[in-house]
C-alpha cells in the first residue's frame, strides 16, 4: 500500500470504531487526493479517452473519487485534453483562474504537452505549460484511460509529497 496511494477508507486506515489523530491539513490533503474532481475541459479527441471513456462504466473513475464537474468553481484538477490554439489559450487561462485553490493541471496527450502533430502550424500553442502551470504530463496520442489512471495516481503521490514538504518545513 505504501507509495502506491490507493483510495483509502478511514476505517481501513485506522480500524473499525477507532479514533484517528491527524493534523487538520493532513486530513484535508487526504480528502483532496481521494476526491480529485476534474473539469470536463475536452477540446479534442483526447476527451473521448480521458474524460468520456474514463468517466463511463468501463473504467469508472468515480470509484477512485475522481469525478467530472461542469464548472471550474467545483473542480480541483483540470485535464487539458486536446490541442490548444492561440484563440483557445485565453479561455484556458480564464478557466484555470476560476478554479478554487488548491488546483492541479494534467496535460493529456501529445497536443497538450507539446503541440503534438499540429506543432508546425503557426496557430498552435507549443504545450499548455506556456499558459498554465502543469503538474503531470501524459504521453500518447491519445493516451489510454489507464494512462490517465496512472496520471491521477502520480498526482496523488505529488499531493502527498507536498504535505510532507510543508510539514518538514516547519
Amino acid at each position, binding site marked *: 500500500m505504501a507509495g502506491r496511494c490507493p483510495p483509502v477508507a478511514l476505517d481501513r486506515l485506522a480500524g473499525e470504531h477507532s479514533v484517528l489523530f491527524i493534523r487538520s491539513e493532513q486530513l484535508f490533503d487526504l480528502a483532496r487526493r481521494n476526491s480529485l474532481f476534474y473539469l470536463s475541459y475536452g477540446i479534442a479527441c483526447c476527451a473521448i479517452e480521458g474524460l468520456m471513456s474514463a468517466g463511463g462504466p468501463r473504467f469508472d473513475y468515480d470509484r477512485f473519487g475522481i469525478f467530472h464537474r461542469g464548472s471550474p468553481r467545483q473542480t480541483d484538477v483540470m485535464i487539458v485534453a486536446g490541442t490548444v490554439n492561440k484563440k483557445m489559450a485565453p479561455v484556458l487561462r480564464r478557466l484555470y483562474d476560476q478554479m478554487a485553490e488548491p488546483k492541479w493541471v494534467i496535460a493529456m496527450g501529445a497536443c497538450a504537452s507539446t503541440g503534438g502533430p499540429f506543432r508546425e502550424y*503557426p*496557430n498552435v500553442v*507549443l504545450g499548455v505549460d506556456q499558459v498554465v502551470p502543469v503538474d503531470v504530463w501524459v504521453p500518447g496520442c491519445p493516451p489510454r484511460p489507464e494512462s490517465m489512471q496512472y496520471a491521477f495516481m502520480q498526482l496523488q503521490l505529488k499531493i502527498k509529497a507536498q504535505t510532507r514538504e510543508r510539514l518538514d518545513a516547519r
Partner: protein
Amino acid sequence: MPASRLADILSKAGVACEPSDEALGAVVRLEAARITDALAALLSDGFGFLVDLFATDTGEAIELTYHVRSLKRLEDAYLKTTVTYDGEAPSVWRVYPAALYAEREAAELFGMAFPGHPNPKRLLTVEGTEPLLRKSIAIREAGEVRLS
C-alpha cells in the same frame, strides 16, 4: 448529370460559363461577379442544399468552389471561380444562408473578401493572424518545434 446541362440552366439565366466533366463531377467555371446569379438559377432549378463552400490556393490565385446538391434528384453540381489574392467574391448568403460560416472561414484563412456579408468577423483565429492556408505563409520550421 453532365456539365452541359448545368451550362444550359445558367445560360437561361444569362450567365456565361465554361462547363467541364471532371473526376469531381459536373463543374462549371464562371467569373466571380456572376456567382450570385448563377447560384440563384441553380436554387430555382432544385439545387436546394449548399453542401460546401471552400477555397483553394492554386499557387497563382484563390479558387472558390461552391458545391450544391439537389436532394430530390440526388444530383451534385460544382461552381468554380477564381479570385486574386486580395480580390473579392460577392457573398451568396441571400441565396444560401448556409454560406455565412463558410465565407467567414474562407475569408480569414485565405485573406480575400466577401463583400455583402452581414457579419464579416473572424471565426477560428485571433485578430492579426495571417491567412494561414495560403501557400506563401510559412509553417514552423523543424528547429523551431524540436523539443530541447
